[in-house]
């Protein structure tokens, strides 16, 4: 069924009785050409594998239900304002895929390019922002340096005269914005299902079938499934799943908290980030201020954090925009992040033939979803990396080719 305004009208006049489920709920077959574990980035990978790379016999195995993992636990921000040459072309590729996503999938994912501003507070930070903006322009992305007059017009509520962190301007990417997170995976799932991909929910992978260094399938809670190639896209649980294949990863799992205030009238012009601490905020279409900051900073799979980090995040918010103190907090949650040792992700082969890995997304997984899926599909189909993801290799620490976007050494708690 193709969604359209005409279809809504027709259904509205006929009692909305003609809507169909968006995807089938098949039982797993004994064998597939491609088995993808994890239905977040994995769902995007399955879609592009079927659509662009013309693969057949694909299954996506999901431990819970669609959207139950980190798909439902992010802050929905999209942007391509990276600096490193290994990162920026990839995220710009992702941004281009976001821009065409709804037409591509025939699904309203609520892609809203309302812009993102990275506020800076000093002359050196302005220099760094200008350098980053130039790197973005070189990659084909958009960037503007805003002075305080420009910024006051866009966001008059910011604390420009803050005694400790006065605001000097911002790096502005108009094409950044937000996307409805669930609707991304639902859109990919519907489109992938229509191309014949089997989406198998409540199916946990409990082990891998590995013979002589070749992966030939997976063991699941619904029985064994043979596979030509297996792709693991389970960021947050990567170490737990890859351990079953005997692989240790350069990853620690950390909890990142996020928060939503009560609904307010439209106040924020787009996504705003604080330059003197770690705080980022956007406003959802329902009006809630969606915000977050640092990870708690210790290994955790708990999907909830602790209060000192809540205080730290809220202090950042108060320093940037004091009016946020008048909004009441509606809810908060924690998501489990694959924090990689240099803050950058992996899309790579493993030492086991036929087993491919996608993870280590740190804070940045949501915005990467389309390109991550596309590049994973490319890797699965051709057994070699897509041009924009060629540096996201598992052996980069051994080779000294770290992608340390933040310019800091080996720490798992980068973002």
């Amino acid at each position: 069924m193709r969604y359209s305004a005409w279809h809504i009208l027709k259904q509205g006049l006929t009692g909305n009785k003609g809507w169909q489920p968006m995807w089938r709920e098949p039982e797993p077959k004994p064998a597939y050409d491609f088995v993808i574990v994890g239905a977040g980035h994995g769902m995007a990978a399955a879609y592009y594998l079927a659509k662009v790379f013309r693969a057949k016999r694909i299954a996506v195995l999901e431990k819970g239900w669609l959207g139950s993992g980190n798909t439902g636990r992010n802050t929905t921000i999209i942007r391509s304002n990276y600096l490193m040459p290994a990162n920026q072309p990839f995220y710009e590729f992702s941004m281009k895929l976001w821009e065409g996503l709804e037409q591509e999938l025939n699904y309203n994912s609520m892609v809203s390019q309302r812009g993102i501003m990275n506020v800076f507070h000093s002359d050196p930070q302005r220099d760094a922002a200008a350098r980053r903006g130039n790197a973005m322009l070189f990659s084909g992305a958009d960037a503007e340096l805003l002075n305080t007059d420009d910024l006051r017009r866009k966001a008059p509520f910011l604390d420009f005269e803050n005694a400790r962190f006065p605001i000097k301007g911002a790096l502005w990417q108009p094409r950044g914005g937000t996307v409805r997170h669930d609707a991304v995976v639902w859109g990919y799932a519907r489109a992938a299902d229509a191309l014949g991909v089997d989406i198998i929910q409540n199916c946990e992978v409990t082990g891998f079938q590995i013979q002589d260094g070749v992966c030939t399938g997976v063991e699941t809670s619904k029985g064994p499934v043979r596979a030509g190639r297996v792709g693991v896209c389970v960021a947050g649980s990567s170490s737990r799943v890859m351990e079953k294949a005997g692989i240790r990863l350069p990853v620690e799992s950390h909890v990142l908290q996020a928060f939503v205030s009560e609904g307010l009238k439209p106040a924020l012009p787009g996504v705003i980030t604080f330059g003197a601490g770690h705080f980022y905020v956007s406003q959802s279409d329902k009006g809630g201020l969606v915000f977050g900051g640092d990870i708690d900073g210790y290994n955790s799979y708990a999907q909830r954090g602790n209060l000192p980090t809540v205080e730290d995040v809220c202090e950042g918010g108060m320093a940037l925009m004091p009016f946020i103190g008048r909004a009441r907090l509606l809810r908060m949650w924690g998501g489990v992040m694959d924090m990689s040792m240099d803050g950058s992700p992996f899309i790579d082969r493993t030492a086991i033939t036929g087993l491919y890995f996608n993870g280590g997304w740190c804070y940045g997984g949501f915005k990467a979803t389309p390109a991550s899926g596309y590049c994973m599909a490319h890797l699965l189909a051709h057994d070699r990396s897509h041009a924009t993801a060629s540096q996201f290799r598992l052996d980069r620490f051994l080779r000294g080719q770290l992608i340390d976007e933040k310019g800091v050494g080996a720490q798992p708690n980068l973002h």
Partner: protein
Amino acid sequence: MIINHPLLGPRDAAEFTYLGDVSLINRPDWKDAEAERKFHDYLYLRDNPAGEHRELWYHEQGDRSWLVVTRDTVTHEVKRVELAREAALAMGRGK
């Protein structure tokens, strides 16, 4: 989280900074023939378990001692706290 410091009693985890897995005590020998690979594994690879995890915490806003905390990464329950010095000696370091 409350960390029950062996010398100072129960202290808020916010007084501490976190380093990571207790295996970071076991720095490889740089003269080892396999030193390059061992340092890679030591610096970058982690077991990252879901469940019981032994890890290093530094009491930065207290007595500046290093502790080995045994904590459940699924529930955040702190099960055991010992001085890192004693844990390291028990592992055979410092000989």
